[in-house]
């Protein structure tokens, strides 16, 4: 009998978080291919939006897809191409970034980037007593980055928390290291640092450590990298909390899609993963020492 084909289209592993996505997607594919003989999960990564569109065309041109699980690069750019696939009768699961036309999505599973920024901001406000100087490191100019920053900035509005500086560090530890060194040289008093991704936080921490400065009370990241979660578990003073944005959501999505395809229970709708703060109390749940991320 013909196998049911599920294509998984995700960004290429170009930094820590996407690497986590690739890791979990492949893990899911391996487990499902072994467990369900009549299902075939194919994982394809693409290094850019345009490549992702190409990959969709290629996958759908060469075989009939029963389902597509996609983590789109950007919403706008992928909407039409995904619609084209849906029009061929494919079940569409969208992960993380919603398409601009929500009716295309049979199943939508998302993290909440605004909440990532907002929750971090809330914690900072509370911890610093509503006032202080903050520097921020942004990632690559994309929607994710934009939403996180928006969540953060909207939340601190009206408080005495002041953003001294905000610059791009491209979700890259090296650039974050340099940027943090420069922030430290420029601003004599910094209370807190927020790097909206843990790769960048690693660079920040090195720079702070090297400077020997004691004014920095908080250095927070985001995404739930294992090294950072470990810090939370260990009760690190500077990084006491973490916001998860688990790359494992792709795995959840693949499983749900399979369930829809082979199971008797139709799975439809809109699932939003929360971005609760990871604290020392619950950190163990978020710790995956074997993941590359």
């Amino acid at each position, binding site marked *: 009998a013909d196998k049911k084909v599920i294509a998984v289209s995700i960004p*290429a*592993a170009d930094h820590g978080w996407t690497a986590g996505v*690739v890791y979990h997607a*492949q893990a899911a594919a391996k487990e499902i291919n072994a467990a369900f003989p009549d299902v075939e999960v*194919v*994982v*394809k*990564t693409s*290094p*850019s*939006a*345009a*490549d992702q*569109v*190409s*990959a969709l*065309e*290629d*996958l759908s*041109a*060469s*075989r009939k897809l029963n389902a597509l699980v996609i983590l789109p*690069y*950007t*919403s*706008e*750019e*992928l*909407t*039409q*191409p995904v619609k084209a696939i849906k029009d061929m009768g494919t079940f569409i699961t969208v992960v993380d970034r919603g398409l*601009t036309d929500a009716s295309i999505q049979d199943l939508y599973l998302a993290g909440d980037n605004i909440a990532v920024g907002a929750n971090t901001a809330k914690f900072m406000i509370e911890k610093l007593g509503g006032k202080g100087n903050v520097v921020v490191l*942004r990632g*690559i*100019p*994309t*929607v994710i*980055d*934009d939403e996180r920053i928006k969540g953060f900035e909207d939340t601190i509005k009206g408080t005495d928390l002041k953003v001294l500086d905000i610059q791009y560090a491209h979700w890259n530890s090296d650039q974050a290291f340099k940027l943090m060194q420069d922030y430290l040289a420029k601003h004599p008093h910094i209370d807190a640092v927020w790097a909206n991704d843990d790769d960048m936080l690693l660079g920040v921490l090195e720079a702070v450590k090297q400077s020997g400065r004691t004014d920095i009370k908080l250095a927070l990241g985001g995404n739930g990298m294992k090294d950072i979660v470990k810090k939370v578990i260990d009760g690190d003073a500077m990084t006491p909390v973490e916001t998860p944005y688990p790359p494992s959501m792709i795995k959840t999505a693949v499983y749900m899609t399979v369930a829809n395809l082979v199971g008797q229970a139709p799975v439809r709708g809109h699932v939003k993963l929360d971005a609760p703060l990871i604290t020392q109390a619950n950190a163990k749940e978020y710790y995956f020492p074997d993941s590359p991320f």
Partner: protein
Amino acid sequence: MTALTQSAPARNDRQFQFSWTDAGPFLALAVLLVVGFAVNPDFLSTTNLGNVITRSAYVAIIAVGATFVISSGGLDLSVGSMVAFIAGITIMFMNMMVPGLGLWAIPVGMAIALLAGLLCGLANGLIVTVGRIEPFIATLGTMGIFRALITYMTDGGTIPIDRSLREAYRPVYFGTLGGIPVPILISAVVALLGAFVLYKTKYGRKCAAVGANEDVARYSGISVIKTRTVAYVIQGACVAIAAVCYVPRLGAATPTTGQLWELQVITAVVIGGTALRGGKGRIWGTIAGAVILELIANLMVLSDFVSEYLVAAVQGVIIIIAMLVQRFSR
């Protein structure tokens, strides 16, 4: 030593000789098609090949311009960012004009795109020629500038095209004319024009002369500055055309649009047989090069041999092998 041999090696006209160098890219293309078929028979399906060739249209169109720049002895690293910048401008203007002009916003927007392309190309050209800065550095600089401008225009996010234009604009990428996808037709027209200008006009000769030997060109009364600047302007026009075709495909411009296309474009040109040091341009080879690159990427997706992580490595190896085959097929 008295015998006087008569065997006179006749000097041959090279004119009609078959040249392996020229045929190289097309051979490589053929080999790739055969390999592709062996890996996955679907590879040669009309849909798949149609998709791949349509996709290669952008790079092909830009690479036609790059053939001019490179054969005139220049280089342009800014084309990828320029695509993003021009796509951004085009969308912005189209969206602005929709309320007043309705669907007429599309052709007017296209004209604005072309104008923007010409101006960007002119800027590159003048910095390189009048400013006498190494093309590599000059266009690396403008690459940063264009990329920053699109980031600024999008506030780090995306500029989507107005919904009301979407459907009307779609055919520019997705439509067909007489069964042939529109982007393929457009790139064919661009290539034909490019080949005509490069091979059949005085400007084409000047371009090659400037790339081959600046001194000789100058002494022959050819303005090196003018010729090379015009090459950059042509490049700008090609980028604009590519951007105009690109917009309907993804319906938006983002700060990551067109990233690293410059490398693909240059690779296509070189695989096509144009020498990076200038003096020789091969439009048709360039087109073959663009298709080859897209085919390799397609093959990577269709085959299941390679770990996701190693795709780039395999692509690198294939490109190097393709170049080696070309070199030693003589």
